[in-house]
Protein backbone atom coordinates (compact mmCIF):
# COMPACT_ATOMS: atom_id res chain seq x y z
CA UNK A 1 0.00 0.00 0.00
CA UNK A 2 2.57 2.56 1.10
CA UNK A 3 5.06 1.30 -1.46
CA UNK A 4 2.38 1.63 -4.13
CA UNK A 5 1.81 5.20 -2.99
CA UNK A 6 5.53 5.96 -3.04
CA UNK A 7 5.87 4.41 -6.46
CA UNK A 8 2.97 6.48 -7.70
CA UNK A 9 4.36 9.72 -6.25
CA UNK A 10 7.81 8.87 -7.56
CA UNK A 11 6.59 8.09 -11.03
CA UNK A 12 4.42 11.19 -11.18
CA UNK A 13 7.33 13.38 -10.09
CA UNK A 14 9.59 11.65 -12.56
CA UNK A 15 7.00 12.20 -15.28
CA UNK A 16 6.75 15.90 -14.44
CA UNK A 17 10.52 16.37 -14.47
CA UNK A 18 10.89 14.35 -17.65
CA UNK A 19 8.17 16.46 -19.29
CA UNK A 20 9.75 19.68 -18.07
CA UNK A 21 13.10 18.52 -19.40
CA UNK A 22 11.68 17.71 -22.83
CA UNK A 23 9.79 21.00 -22.90
CA UNK A 24 12.96 22.92 -22.07
CA UNK A 25 14.77 20.99 -24.78
CA UNK A 26 12.09 22.01 -27.29
CA UNK A 27 12.36 25.68 -26.33
CA UNK A 28 16.16 25.58 -26.44
CA UNK A 29 16.21 23.83 -29.78
CA UNK A 30 13.79 26.44 -31.15
CA UNK A 31 16.06 29.26 -30.02
CA UNK A 32 19.05 27.53 -31.60
CA UNK A 33 17.29 27.14 -34.94
CA UNK A 34 16.13 30.74 -34.83
CA UNK A 35 19.72 31.75 -34.13
CA UNK A 36 20.77 29.99 -37.32
CA UNK A 37 18.16 32.00 -39.22
CA UNK A 38 16.96 28.95 -41.09
CA UNK A 39 13.27 29.81 -41.15
CA UNK A 40 10.78 28.00 -43.34
CA UNK A 41 9.12 31.08 -44.82
CA UNK A 42 6.48 29.25 -46.81
CA UNK A 43 5.42 27.04 -43.91
CA UNK A 44 5.19 30.08 -41.64
CA UNK A 45 2.99 31.87 -44.14
CA UNK A 46 0.73 28.85 -44.51
CA UNK A 47 0.32 28.68 -40.74
CA UNK A 48 -0.37 32.41 -40.43
CA UNK A 49 -3.16 32.15 -42.96
CA UNK A 50 -4.55 28.99 -41.44
CA UNK A 51 -4.54 30.17 -37.82
CA UNK A 52 -5.88 33.58 -38.79
CA UNK A 53 -8.70 32.29 -40.95
CA UNK A 54 -9.61 29.44 -38.59
CA UNK A 55 -9.93 31.66 -35.59
CA UNK A 56 -11.15 35.01 -36.93
CA UNK A 57 -14.93 34.38 -37.01
CA UNK A 58 -15.18 32.85 -33.56
CA UNK A 59 -12.85 35.50 -32.09
CA UNK A 60 -14.97 38.33 -33.50
CA UNK A 61 -18.20 36.71 -32.40
CA UNK A 62 -17.18 35.98 -28.80
CA UNK A 63 -15.68 39.41 -28.38
CA UNK A 64 -18.73 41.12 -29.83
CA UNK A 65 -20.97 39.42 -27.29
CA UNK A 66 -18.54 40.15 -24.47
CA UNK A 67 -18.76 43.85 -25.34
CA UNK A 68 -22.54 43.59 -25.41
CA UNK A 69 -22.83 41.93 -22.03
CA UNK A 70 -20.40 44.40 -20.46
CA UNK A 71 -22.50 47.31 -21.71
CA UNK A 72 -25.66 45.66 -20.46
CA UNK A 73 -24.31 44.98 -16.96
CA UNK A 74 -22.67 48.37 -16.66
CA UNK A 75 -25.79 50.09 -17.94
CA UNK A 76 -27.97 48.34 -15.37
CA UNK A 77 -25.62 49.07 -12.50
CA UNK A 78 -25.18 52.67 -13.46
CA UNK A 79 -28.93 53.10 -13.90
CA UNK A 80 -29.46 51.63 -10.48
CA UNK A 81 -26.98 53.89 -8.67
CA UNK A 82 -27.07 57.11 -10.67
CA UNK A 83 -30.38 56.83 -12.46
CA UNK A 84 -28.67 57.16 -15.81
CA UNK A 85 -26.13 55.11 -17.79
CA UNK A 86 -22.73 56.74 -17.23
CA UNK A 87 -19.30 55.93 -18.66
CA UNK A 88 -20.45 52.82 -20.48
CA UNK A 89 -17.92 53.36 -23.28
CA UNK A 90 -15.12 53.83 -20.78
CA UNK A 91 -15.87 50.67 -18.86
CA UNK A 92 -16.41 48.52 -21.93
CA UNK A 93 -13.28 49.72 -23.70
CA UNK A 94 -10.96 49.48 -20.69
CA UNK A 95 -12.19 46.02 -19.75
CA UNK A 96 -11.86 44.79 -23.34
CA UNK A 97 -8.61 46.43 -24.36
CA UNK A 98 -6.64 45.79 -21.19
CA UNK A 99 -7.94 42.43 -20.09
CA UNK A 100 -10.74 40.58 -21.80
CA UNK A 101 -9.68 41.06 -25.41
CA UNK A 102 -6.21 39.54 -24.99
CA UNK A 103 -7.32 36.77 -22.61
CA UNK A 104 -10.46 35.71 -24.45
CA UNK A 105 -8.73 35.79 -27.81
CA UNK A 106 -5.87 33.67 -26.52
CA UNK A 107 -8.31 31.16 -25.04
CA UNK A 108 -10.46 30.97 -28.15
CA UNK A 109 -7.41 30.59 -30.41
CA UNK A 110 -6.01 27.90 -28.10
CA UNK A 111 -9.27 25.99 -28.43
CA UNK A 112 -9.46 26.43 -32.18
CA UNK A 113 -5.97 26.60 -33.69
CA UNK A 114 -4.06 25.16 -30.72
CA UNK A 115 -6.16 22.00 -30.73
CA UNK A 116 -5.70 21.70 -34.49
CA UNK A 117 -1.92 21.98 -34.10
CA UNK A 118 -1.75 19.37 -31.35
CA UNK A 119 -3.93 16.97 -33.33
CA UNK A 120 -2.02 17.47 -36.56
CA UNK A 121 1.43 17.10 -35.03
CA UNK A 122 0.20 14.22 -32.89
CA UNK A 123 -1.05 12.37 -35.94
CA UNK A 124 2.23 13.07 -37.71
CA UNK A 125 4.09 11.64 -34.74
CA UNK A 126 2.12 8.42 -34.44
CA UNK A 127 2.23 7.77 -38.20
CA UNK A 128 6.02 8.33 -38.18
CA UNK A 129 5.82 11.44 -40.38
CA UNK A 130 7.86 13.29 -37.77
CA UNK A 131 10.55 10.61 -38.04
CA UNK A 132 10.36 10.87 -41.82
CA UNK A 133 11.23 14.58 -41.61
CA UNK A 134 14.43 13.59 -39.88
CA UNK A 135 15.37 10.95 -42.44
CA UNK A 136 14.75 13.46 -45.24
CA UNK A 137 17.25 15.93 -43.89
CA UNK A 138 15.25 18.41 -41.90
CA UNK A 139 14.19 18.68 -38.31
CA UNK A 140 10.76 18.62 -36.66
CA UNK A 141 11.55 21.74 -34.66
CA UNK A 142 12.70 23.63 -37.71
CA UNK A 143 9.99 22.41 -40.05
CA UNK A 144 6.98 22.12 -37.74
CA UNK A 145 7.47 23.98 -34.47
CA UNK A 146 9.11 27.24 -35.53
CA UNK A 147 6.61 28.10 -38.28
CA UNK A 148 3.75 27.56 -35.83
CA UNK A 149 5.31 29.56 -33.02
CA UNK A 150 6.11 32.44 -35.38
CA UNK A 151 2.64 32.29 -36.87
CA UNK A 152 1.10 32.52 -33.41
CA UNK A 153 3.31 35.50 -32.58
CA UNK A 154 2.23 37.20 -35.78
CA UNK A 155 -1.46 36.38 -35.66
CA UNK A 156 -2.52 36.56 -32.01
CA UNK A 157 -1.76 40.30 -31.53
CA UNK A 158 -3.58 41.08 -34.77
CA UNK A 159 -6.60 38.98 -33.79
CA UNK A 160 -6.64 40.64 -30.38
CA UNK A 161 -6.82 44.11 -31.92
CA UNK A 162 -9.68 42.91 -34.12
CA UNK A 163 -11.37 41.48 -31.03
CA UNK A 164 -10.94 44.79 -29.21
CA UNK A 165 -12.75 46.64 -31.99
CA UNK A 166 -15.44 44.00 -32.21
CA UNK A 167 -16.11 44.14 -28.46
CA UNK A 168 -16.27 47.91 -28.38
CA UNK A 169 -18.69 47.92 -31.29
CA UNK A 170 -20.79 45.26 -29.55
CA UNK A 171 -20.91 47.48 -26.48
CA UNK A 172 -21.92 50.42 -28.63
CA UNK A 173 -24.92 48.60 -30.05
CA UNK A 174 -26.28 47.74 -26.63
CA UNK A 175 -25.53 51.18 -25.22
CA UNK A 176 -27.21 52.92 -28.13
CA UNK A 177 -30.22 50.67 -28.56
CA UNK A 178 -31.06 49.56 -25.01
CA UNK A 179 -29.58 52.32 -22.86
CA UNK A 180 -30.23 55.17 -25.29
CA UNK A 181 -26.75 56.54 -24.83
CA UNK A 182 -26.07 59.08 -27.61
CA UNK A 183 -23.38 57.81 -30.00
CA UNK A 184 -20.96 60.69 -29.51
CA UNK A 185 -21.14 60.25 -25.72
CA UNK A 186 -20.17 56.56 -26.02
CA UNK A 187 -17.23 57.30 -28.32
CA UNK A 188 -16.08 60.31 -26.30
CA UNK A 189 -16.12 58.23 -23.13
CA UNK A 190 -13.57 56.05 -24.88
CA UNK A 191 -11.41 58.59 -26.69
CA UNK A 192 -11.15 61.01 -23.80
CA UNK A 193 -9.92 58.37 -21.36
CA UNK A 194 -8.00 55.73 -23.29
CA UNK A 195 -4.26 56.38 -23.48
CA UNK A 196 -1.64 54.55 -25.56
CA UNK A 197 -0.28 52.81 -22.48
CA UNK A 198 -3.68 51.22 -21.84
CA UNK A 199 -3.54 49.75 -25.29
CA UNK A 200 0.06 48.57 -24.85
CA UNK A 201 -0.89 46.91 -21.60
CA UNK A 202 -3.25 44.54 -23.38
CA UNK A 203 -1.25 44.27 -26.58
CA UNK A 204 2.05 43.25 -25.00
CA UNK A 205 0.35 40.47 -23.06
CA UNK A 206 -0.67 38.79 -26.29
CA UNK A 207 2.98 37.99 -27.06
CA UNK A 208 3.25 36.13 -23.75
CA UNK A 209 0.09 34.17 -24.53
CA UNK A 210 1.14 33.43 -28.11
CA UNK A 211 4.44 32.02 -26.90
CA UNK A 212 2.98 29.81 -24.20
CA UNK A 213 0.01 28.50 -26.19
CA UNK A 214 2.04 27.70 -29.30
CA UNK A 215 4.85 25.96 -27.43
CA UNK A 216 2.46 23.92 -25.29
CA UNK A 217 0.42 22.77 -28.29
CA UNK A 218 3.49 21.92 -30.37
CA UNK A 219 5.08 20.14 -27.44
CA UNK A 220 1.98 18.07 -26.72
CA UNK A 221 1.68 17.28 -30.42
CA UNK A 222 5.17 16.07 -31.15
CA UNK A 223 5.50 14.07 -27.93
CA UNK A 224 2.25 12.17 -28.58
CA UNK A 225 2.33 8.41 -28.09
CA UNK A 226 -0.14 5.62 -28.51
CA UNK A 227 -2.06 5.83 -31.77
CA UNK A 228 -5.40 7.56 -32.30
CA UNK A 229 -6.21 7.38 -28.61
CA UNK A 230 -2.95 9.13 -27.81
CA UNK A 231 -3.75 11.90 -30.29
CA UNK A 232 -7.06 12.51 -28.51
CA UNK A 233 -5.37 12.58 -25.15
CA UNK A 234 -2.63 14.97 -26.16
CA UNK A 235 -5.07 17.31 -27.93
CA UNK A 236 -7.23 17.61 -24.83
CA UNK A 237 -4.18 18.10 -22.63
CA UNK A 238 -2.80 20.73 -24.99
CA UNK A 239 -6.00 22.79 -24.87
CA UNK A 240 -6.44 22.54 -21.11
CA UNK A 241 -2.81 23.35 -20.38
CA UNK A 242 -2.84 26.28 -22.83
CA UNK A 243 -5.94 27.79 -21.27
CA UNK A 244 -4.62 27.41 -17.76
CA UNK A 245 -1.29 28.91 -18.83
CA UNK A 246 -3.07 31.94 -20.30
CA UNK A 247 -4.97 32.65 -17.10
CA UNK A 248 -1.96 32.10 -14.85
CA UNK A 249 0.48 34.05 -17.01
CA UNK A 250 -2.06 36.85 -17.32
CA UNK A 251 -1.67 37.59 -13.62
CA UNK A 252 2.11 37.66 -13.78
CA UNK A 253 2.21 39.64 -17.01
CA UNK A 254 -0.15 42.20 -15.50
CA UNK A 255 2.01 42.46 -12.40
CA UNK A 256 5.14 43.01 -14.49
CA UNK A 257 3.45 45.58 -16.75
CA UNK A 258 2.13 47.43 -13.70
CA UNK A 259 5.60 47.49 -12.19
CA UNK A 260 6.89 48.97 -15.46
CA UNK A 261 4.14 51.59 -15.40
CA UNK A 262 2.46 50.35 -18.55
CA UNK A 263 -1.01 50.35 -17.11
Amino acid at each position, binding site marked *: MTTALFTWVGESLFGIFEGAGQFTFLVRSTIQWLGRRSIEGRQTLVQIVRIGIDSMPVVLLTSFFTGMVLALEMGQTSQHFFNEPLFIGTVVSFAIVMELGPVMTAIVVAGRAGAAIAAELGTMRVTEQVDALY*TLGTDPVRYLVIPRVLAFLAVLPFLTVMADFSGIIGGYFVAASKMHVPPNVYWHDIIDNMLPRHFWHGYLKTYVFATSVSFICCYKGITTRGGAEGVGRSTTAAVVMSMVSVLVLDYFATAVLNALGIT
Partner: protein
Amino acid sequence: MIEAKGVVKRFGDRTILRGVDLTVEQGETLCIIGGSGCGKSTFLKCVIGLLRPDEGRVTVDGLDIAEMNEETRIGDYRRRFGYLFQEAALFDSMTVWENVTFGLRYLTRTDPSKFRSIAKDKLALVGLKDIEDFKPAELSGGMKKRVGLARAIAAEPSYILYDEPTTGLDPIMSDVINDLILDLQKQLKVTSIVVTHDMKSAYKIASRIAMLHEGRVLESAPPEAIKRSENPYVHQFVEGLSQGPIKMKLKDYEPDAAARQGTAG
Protein backbone atom coordinates in the same frame (compact mmCIF):
# COMPACT_ATOMS: atom_id res chain seq x y z
CA MET B 1 30.25 -0.13 -44.17
CA ILE B 2 27.72 -0.37 -41.36
CA GLU B 3 28.92 -1.94 -38.13
CA ALA B 4 26.69 -2.65 -35.16
CA LYS B 5 28.36 -3.85 -31.98
CA GLY B 6 26.43 -5.05 -28.95
CA VAL B 7 23.41 -2.85 -29.64
CA VAL B 8 20.98 -2.90 -26.71
CA LYS B 9 17.70 -0.99 -26.86
CA ARG B 10 15.12 -0.77 -24.11
CA PHE B 11 11.69 0.81 -24.05
CA GLY B 12 10.83 1.40 -20.41
CA ASP B 13 11.59 -1.88 -18.68
CA ARG B 14 11.27 -3.98 -21.83
CA THR B 15 14.53 -4.86 -23.50
CA ILE B 16 13.91 -5.19 -27.22
CA LEU B 17 17.44 -5.56 -28.58
CA ARG B 18 19.77 -7.54 -26.33
CA GLY B 19 23.13 -7.10 -27.98
CA VAL B 20 22.93 -7.13 -31.76
CA ASP B 21 26.19 -7.58 -33.67
CA LEU B 22 25.94 -7.13 -37.41
CA THR B 23 28.24 -5.91 -40.15
CA VAL B 24 27.13 -4.85 -43.59
CA GLU B 25 29.95 -4.66 -46.10
CA GLN B 26 30.10 -2.06 -48.86
CA GLY B 27 27.83 -3.01 -51.75
CA GLU B 28 26.15 -5.81 -49.83
CA THR B 29 22.42 -6.36 -49.30
CA LEU B 30 21.72 -7.74 -45.86
CA CYS B 31 18.25 -9.12 -45.22
CA ILE B 32 17.01 -9.19 -41.65
CA ILE B 33 14.29 -11.73 -40.94
CA GLY B 34 12.48 -12.45 -37.70
CA GLY B 35 9.06 -12.61 -36.08
CA SER B 36 6.82 -9.58 -35.74
CA GLY B 37 7.82 -7.38 -32.84
CA CYS B 38 11.28 -8.84 -32.44
CA GLY B 39 12.85 -5.43 -32.98
CA LYS B 40 13.70 -5.31 -36.68
CA SER B 41 12.31 -1.81 -37.21
CA THR B 42 13.88 -0.72 -33.94
CA PHE B 43 17.26 -1.87 -35.22
CA LEU B 44 16.91 0.09 -38.47
CA LYS B 45 16.01 3.18 -36.47
CA CYS B 46 19.13 2.75 -34.37
CA VAL B 47 21.20 2.63 -37.55
CA ILE B 48 19.88 5.88 -39.00
CA GLY B 49 19.90 7.62 -35.63
CA LEU B 50 16.17 7.98 -35.01
CA LEU B 51 16.74 5.97 -31.84
CA ARG B 52 19.90 5.95 -29.77
CA PRO B 53 21.05 2.54 -28.51
CA ASP B 54 21.17 2.25 -24.72
CA GLU B 55 24.37 0.22 -24.99
CA GLY B 56 26.73 -0.67 -27.77
CA ARG B 57 27.34 1.39 -30.88
CA VAL B 58 26.57 1.68 -34.55
CA THR B 59 29.16 3.13 -36.88
CA VAL B 60 28.75 3.97 -40.54
CA ASP B 61 31.94 4.55 -42.51
CA GLY B 62 33.59 4.90 -39.13
CA LEU B 63 31.20 7.65 -37.98
CA ASP B 64 29.24 7.15 -34.77
CA ILE B 65 26.15 9.31 -34.57
CA ALA B 66 26.04 9.01 -30.79
CA GLU B 67 29.21 11.10 -30.68
CA MET B 68 27.83 13.87 -32.86
CA ASN B 69 26.08 16.90 -31.56
CA GLU B 70 26.52 19.50 -34.26
CA GLU B 71 23.66 19.71 -36.67
CA THR B 72 25.95 19.88 -39.72
CA ARG B 73 27.72 16.65 -38.83
CA ILE B 74 24.47 14.84 -38.07
CA GLY B 75 23.23 16.10 -41.43
CA ASP B 76 26.30 14.68 -43.12
CA TYR B 77 25.63 11.29 -41.52
CA ARG B 78 21.97 11.29 -42.43
CA ARG B 79 22.63 12.33 -46.02
CA ARG B 80 24.12 8.90 -46.66
CA PHE B 81 20.80 7.15 -46.00
CA GLY B 82 17.48 6.55 -47.63
CA TYR B 83 14.83 5.09 -45.35
CA LEU B 84 11.62 3.31 -46.31
CA PHE B 85 9.19 3.28 -43.39
CA GLN B 86 7.13 0.21 -42.68
CA GLU B 87 3.87 2.18 -43.03
CA ALA B 88 5.38 4.49 -45.67
CA ALA B 89 4.96 7.58 -43.41
CA LEU B 90 4.00 9.84 -46.32
CA PHE B 91 3.24 13.45 -45.46
CA ASP B 92 -0.51 13.55 -45.87
CA SER B 93 -0.65 17.31 -46.30
CA MET B 94 1.43 17.07 -49.49
CA THR B 95 0.88 15.61 -52.93
CA VAL B 96 2.71 12.52 -54.10
CA TRP B 97 5.33 14.43 -56.07
CA GLU B 98 5.99 16.83 -53.19
CA ASN B 99 6.48 13.81 -50.97
CA VAL B 100 8.93 12.17 -53.35
CA THR B 101 11.08 15.29 -53.74
CA PHE B 102 10.80 16.53 -50.15
CA GLY B 103 14.31 15.43 -49.20
CA LEU B 104 15.98 16.98 -52.26
CA ARG B 105 15.63 20.47 -50.77
CA TYR B 106 17.55 19.48 -47.67
CA LEU B 107 19.86 16.72 -48.82
CA THR B 108 20.95 17.94 -52.26
CA ARG B 109 21.42 21.13 -54.25
CA THR B 110 18.95 20.17 -56.96
CA ASP B 111 17.21 23.02 -58.77
CA PRO B 112 13.59 23.05 -57.50
CA SER B 113 12.23 23.58 -61.02
CA LYS B 114 13.37 20.04 -61.84
CA PHE B 115 11.60 18.45 -58.88
CA ARG B 116 8.48 17.46 -60.71
CA SER B 117 10.26 15.63 -63.49
CA ILE B 118 12.55 13.92 -60.98
CA ALA B 119 9.48 12.76 -59.08
CA LYS B 120 8.02 11.39 -62.31
CA ASP B 121 11.22 9.41 -63.01
CA LYS B 122 11.46 7.99 -59.50
CA LEU B 123 7.79 7.01 -59.52
CA ALA B 124 8.28 5.25 -62.85
CA LEU B 125 11.07 3.21 -61.25
CA VAL B 126 8.62 1.82 -58.70
CA GLY B 127 5.96 1.17 -61.34
CA LEU B 128 3.71 4.18 -60.73
CA LYS B 129 2.58 6.77 -63.21
CA ASP B 130 0.09 9.63 -63.44
CA ILE B 131 -0.38 9.91 -59.71
CA GLU B 132 1.92 12.89 -59.09
CA ASP B 133 -0.92 15.14 -57.97
CA PHE B 134 -2.73 12.66 -55.74
CA LYS B 135 -2.74 13.01 -51.98
CA PRO B 136 -1.55 9.97 -49.95
CA ALA B 137 -5.09 9.43 -48.64
CA GLU B 138 -6.18 8.60 -52.19
CA LEU B 139 -3.67 5.75 -52.59
CA SER B 140 -3.89 2.07 -51.70
CA GLY B 141 -1.50 0.60 -49.13
CA GLY B 142 0.77 -0.91 -51.75
CA MET B 143 0.91 2.33 -53.72
CA LYS B 144 1.84 4.26 -50.57
CA LYS B 145 4.63 1.81 -49.95
CA ARG B 146 5.99 2.38 -53.43
CA VAL B 147 5.73 6.17 -53.15
CA GLY B 148 7.64 5.81 -49.88
CA LEU B 149 10.26 3.82 -51.73
CA ALA B 150 10.50 6.45 -54.47
CA ARG B 151 10.98 9.06 -51.74
CA ALA B 152 13.69 6.99 -50.06
CA ILE B 153 15.75 6.67 -53.24
CA ALA B 154 15.10 10.17 -54.63
CA ALA B 155 18.23 11.77 -53.20
CA GLU B 156 20.37 8.87 -54.43
CA PRO B 157 21.72 7.75 -51.06
CA SER B 158 24.60 5.32 -50.73
CA TYR B 159 22.84 3.33 -48.00
CA ILE B 160 19.20 2.34 -48.15
CA LEU B 161 17.27 0.90 -45.23
CA TYR B 162 14.10 -0.86 -46.34
CA ASP B 163 11.48 -1.75 -43.74
CA GLU B 164 9.37 -4.50 -45.32
CA PRO B 165 9.45 -3.19 -48.90
CA THR B 166 7.23 -5.93 -50.34
CA THR B 167 4.66 -6.39 -47.57
CA GLY B 168 1.21 -5.62 -48.92
CA LEU B 169 2.19 -5.80 -52.59
CA ASP B 170 0.90 -8.36 -55.05
CA PRO B 171 3.42 -11.06 -56.10
CA ILE B 172 4.24 -9.43 -59.42
CA MET B 173 4.77 -6.00 -57.94
CA SER B 174 6.87 -7.61 -55.19
CA ASP B 175 9.14 -8.97 -57.85
CA VAL B 176 9.36 -5.58 -59.57
CA ILE B 177 10.53 -4.12 -56.25
CA ASN B 178 12.99 -6.99 -55.80
CA ASP B 179 14.46 -6.20 -59.21
CA LEU B 180 14.65 -2.53 -58.33
CA ILE B 181 16.56 -3.31 -55.14
CA LEU B 182 18.93 -5.55 -57.10
CA ASP B 183 19.40 -2.85 -59.76
CA LEU B 184 20.21 -0.21 -57.20
CA GLN B 185 22.77 -2.57 -55.69
CA LYS B 186 24.38 -3.58 -58.98
CA GLN B 187 24.33 -0.28 -60.85
CA LEU B 188 24.68 2.31 -58.12
CA LYS B 189 26.60 0.10 -55.67
CA VAL B 190 24.07 0.88 -52.98
CA THR B 191 24.55 -0.86 -49.64
CA SER B 192 21.26 -1.95 -48.11
CA ILE B 193 19.57 -3.48 -45.13
CA VAL B 194 16.21 -5.02 -45.98
CA VAL B 195 13.82 -6.08 -43.25
CA THR B 196 11.40 -8.63 -44.63
CA HIS B 197 9.10 -11.57 -43.89
CA ASP B 198 9.00 -12.50 -47.52
CA MET B 199 11.45 -15.42 -47.84
CA LYS B 200 11.14 -15.53 -51.60
CA SER B 201 12.23 -11.94 -51.83
CA ALA B 202 14.99 -12.48 -49.24
CA TYR B 203 16.46 -15.40 -51.22
CA LYS B 204 16.40 -13.33 -54.38
CA ILE B 205 17.99 -10.08 -53.21
CA ALA B 206 20.11 -10.93 -50.19
CA SER B 207 23.82 -11.37 -50.24
CA ARG B 208 23.42 -12.38 -46.62
CA ILE B 209 20.46 -13.14 -44.38
CA ALA B 210 20.46 -12.53 -40.63
CA MET B 211 17.79 -13.91 -38.36
CA LEU B 212 16.82 -11.85 -35.34
CA HIS B 213 15.19 -13.64 -32.43
CA GLU B 214 14.62 -12.43 -28.87
CA GLY B 215 16.84 -9.44 -29.40
CA ARG B 216 19.88 -11.26 -30.77
CA VAL B 217 21.18 -12.39 -34.13
CA LEU B 218 20.72 -16.18 -34.25
CA GLU B 219 22.48 -16.77 -37.50
CA SER B 220 23.88 -14.67 -40.30
CA ALA B 221 24.81 -16.44 -43.51
CA PRO B 222 24.36 -16.41 -47.29
CA PRO B 223 20.88 -17.39 -48.54
CA GLU B 224 21.82 -21.00 -49.49
CA ALA B 225 23.23 -21.62 -46.03
CA ILE B 226 20.14 -20.15 -44.38
CA LYS B 227 17.94 -22.34 -46.55
CA ARG B 228 19.70 -25.44 -45.26
CA SER B 229 20.28 -24.11 -41.76
CA GLU B 230 20.37 -26.68 -38.98
CA ASN B 231 19.47 -24.15 -36.35
CA PRO B 232 15.92 -25.24 -35.39
CA TYR B 233 14.69 -21.67 -34.94
CA VAL B 234 15.97 -20.55 -38.31
CA HIS B 235 14.65 -23.69 -39.97
CA GLN B 236 11.19 -23.19 -38.48
CA PHE B 237 11.09 -19.54 -39.55
CA VAL B 238 12.27 -19.91 -43.13
CA GLU B 239 10.02 -22.87 -43.70
CA GLY B 240 7.10 -21.11 -42.01
CA LEU B 241 6.17 -23.96 -39.67
CA SER B 242 3.74 -23.55 -36.80
CA GLN B 243 5.43 -26.35 -34.86
CA GLY B 244 8.93 -25.83 -33.53
CA PRO B 245 10.96 -24.10 -30.87
CA ILE B 246 9.45 -20.65 -31.60
CA LYS B 247 6.17 -20.63 -29.71
CA MET B 248 3.53 -18.17 -30.76
CA LYS B 249 1.28 -18.25 -27.76
CA LEU B 250 -2.24 -17.37 -28.64
CA LYS B 251 -4.04 -18.00 -25.38
CA ASP B 252 -1.94 -17.75 -22.27
CA TYR B 253 -0.86 -14.23 -21.57
CA GLU B 254 2.86 -14.25 -21.13
CA PRO B 255 4.94 -11.06 -21.15
CA ASP B 256 7.47 -12.50 -23.56
CA ALA B 257 4.85 -13.66 -26.02
CA ALA B 258 3.08 -10.34 -25.75
CA ALA B 259 6.35 -8.62 -26.51
CA ARG B 260 6.79 -10.75 -29.58
CA GLN B 261 3.31 -10.11 -30.84
CA GLY B 262 2.99 -6.56 -29.51
CA THR B 263 2.96 -4.84 -32.87
CA ALA B 264 1.81 -6.78 -35.84
CA GLY B 265 4.10 -6.71 -38.82
